[in-house]
């Protein structure tokens, strides 16, 4: 099992610094992505179309970060040929990197829906569902990144459970939105925008869940994707 102190155990000090800096960069990117999500959600709540510019700028920054991190991972693999937990760390960083970039894209999509909704007027649902699911997803994303920073498997399991909850809420939100559409066809446009935003939020939840699963892989060396983690539950701690 991997522990926090295990980093910094290499004979080559340079290698330590490289791995540590990679981790820091990934988490800095995580911070940027978290900001992107908060901004997008706020824009949606306030129907504010003025955020578009900052969202686009932020998205560009996130993409740039993704490319830098990928490049550095490749350099480390080529030059250091990492093994065991170092290899797992590099692999995890590559995967989490990709998930984070996707989350950034999904958040940008939420903002796009916000801009469209701000032109079309308020949706009849008054965004109760989005507010709720958005808050849940924001917490999931933060927890998954915290779990990665702290190498905390218990937290990672919580994230996976939280994502199951988000999926459930997403289902019922969809049903209630369909009811709105049936009631008054004039709402269909706005409701469709809202559904797209919800869909993006749900995807963000899935990506956060992926990050949590990567954390389990990093710490335990155990591949728990595709539902295995929810099956194992707390038992994973014993591996």
């Amino acid at each position, binding site marked *: 099992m991997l522990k*926090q*102190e295990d980093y910094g155990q290499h004979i080559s000090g340079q290698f330590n610094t490289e791995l*540590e800096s990679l*981790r*820091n960069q990934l*988490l*800095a990117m*995580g*911070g*940027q992505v*978290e*900001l992107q999500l*908060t901004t997008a959600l706020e824009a949606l709540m306030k129907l504010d179309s*003025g955020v578009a510019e900052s969202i686009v700028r932020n998205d560009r920054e996130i993409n740039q970060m993704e490319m830098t991190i990928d490049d550095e991972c490749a350099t480390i693999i080529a030059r250091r040929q990492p093994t065991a937990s170092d290899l797992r760390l590099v692999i995890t960083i590559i995967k989490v990197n990709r998930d984070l970039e996707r989350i950034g894209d999904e958040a940008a999509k939420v903002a796009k829906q916000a801009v469209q909704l701000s032109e079309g007027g308020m949706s009849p649902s008054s965004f109760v569902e989005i507010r709720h699911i958005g*808050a849940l997803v*924001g917490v999931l994303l*933060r927890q998954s*990144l*915290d779990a990665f*920073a*702290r190498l905390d498997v218990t937290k990672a399991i919580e994230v996976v459970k939280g994502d199951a909850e988000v999926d459930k809420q997403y289902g019922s939100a969809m049903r209630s939105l369909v009811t709105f559409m049936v009631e008054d066809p004039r709402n269909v446009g706005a409701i469709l925008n809202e559904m797209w935003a919800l869909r993006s939020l749900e995807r963000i939840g899935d990506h956060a869940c992926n990050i949590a699963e990567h954390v389990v892989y990093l710490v335990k060396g155990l591949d728990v994707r595709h539902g295995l983690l929810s099956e194992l539950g707390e038992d994973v701690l014993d591996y």
Partner: protein
Amino acid sequence: MTWVAATSRALLLITVVACVGALYGYPQEAVILALLGICGFSYHQMRRVQLWLQTPEQMPPDAYGLWGQILSRMYFLQRNSLEAQAQLQTTVDSLQDSFAAMRDGVVMVDTNGCIKWLNRSLEPLLGLRCPEDTGQPLTNLVRAPEFSRYFLAMDYSAPLEYLASVGDKPLYLRIEVTPFGEGERLLFVRDVSNAVLMEKMRREFVANVSHELRTPLTVISGYLGTLLSDTNAFPERYLKAVTQMGQQAERMESLLKDLLWLSRIESEHYNTAHDAIDVQGLFHELRDDLAESHPNSVLVLEISTDETICGNYRQLYSAVSNLAINAIKYSPEGNPVTLSWTLQGDDLCMQVRDRGLGIDSSHIPRLTERFYRVDDSRNSATGGTGLGLAIVKHVAAANDGQLKIESKLGEGSTFTLIFPARG
């Protein structure tokens, strides 16, 4: 002294043994025997010291002569250092306890940006866990880009205030960083949500009140205008009263207008429309406007640079016009007022200069406060609202500039808006 005693005792022993040996005819062997004895005794004592040093908490063994002295001295030194250590530990503990008991969050960060020590109050503020998070790089756990930028820039002259979302509801946090030692930093984190909300409420309250008061006032001054337009039909004895009511209503309207304008500048602080401003055009527009409202004024324009600045045109216009009108009001009639636009080093200066009454230096620090007046009697004569300079100051702040006031009583005043030149 013991050293001398111990040596003489050993010598005495050797001499006595040598004498006895000489009696029996073996003097050399006897001396060797004595020396071996002394050596053996020393080794025995050394072994006892070594055994004791393995468990130095216990009392040292009894020893004879010099060895006894050495042992008791060692024991004494060791007890002293233990006591000093305990004392130091208590001090450190009580210091950490007092930090731990603080309601503000406290983090100590080492040269590499890793957490060295933190208190429990950080859990609800930054989501840090005490003490598990010790050793983690701080920016890995507090990932808000605004915080990372501030923390990594190493410039802690001003505290950082930012909106953090850790728990269910967003918090406004104020972060103060004190560098100490070699690259170590001490962070104080405080929740200032209440203060920020209060400030917001105050701003909104002023804006709302001004807005609500305007509607009834418009009705009142409208009717007063109607009454005054036909003075012939009006009884003579009420005429003066109604005329004054009309004047005061007008004054109140301009007050409310200024208040609303001020609160708008304040709330626009973060999203000012930034377009390049043609200062020359602004001065010309101002001169044309003032020629109408103050026909006796003399306005001199000095434009020595064609640099432009980024900012909000409406706001800057109102600031300069406030300054110019003040200058005209407080100068003897016909005295020229100079508007200048110059580049001084790295600064662009927009200056309004008059040779009027001037202001005593004791008033200058408070001049930009709302409703502050140098002299109460000035109030009625000039009919200002008392908000002009407050507006100027806020406009300067909203457009990345500063307001500088220089004045000498009797010689006139100079108000300068300083903006950084665009590199």
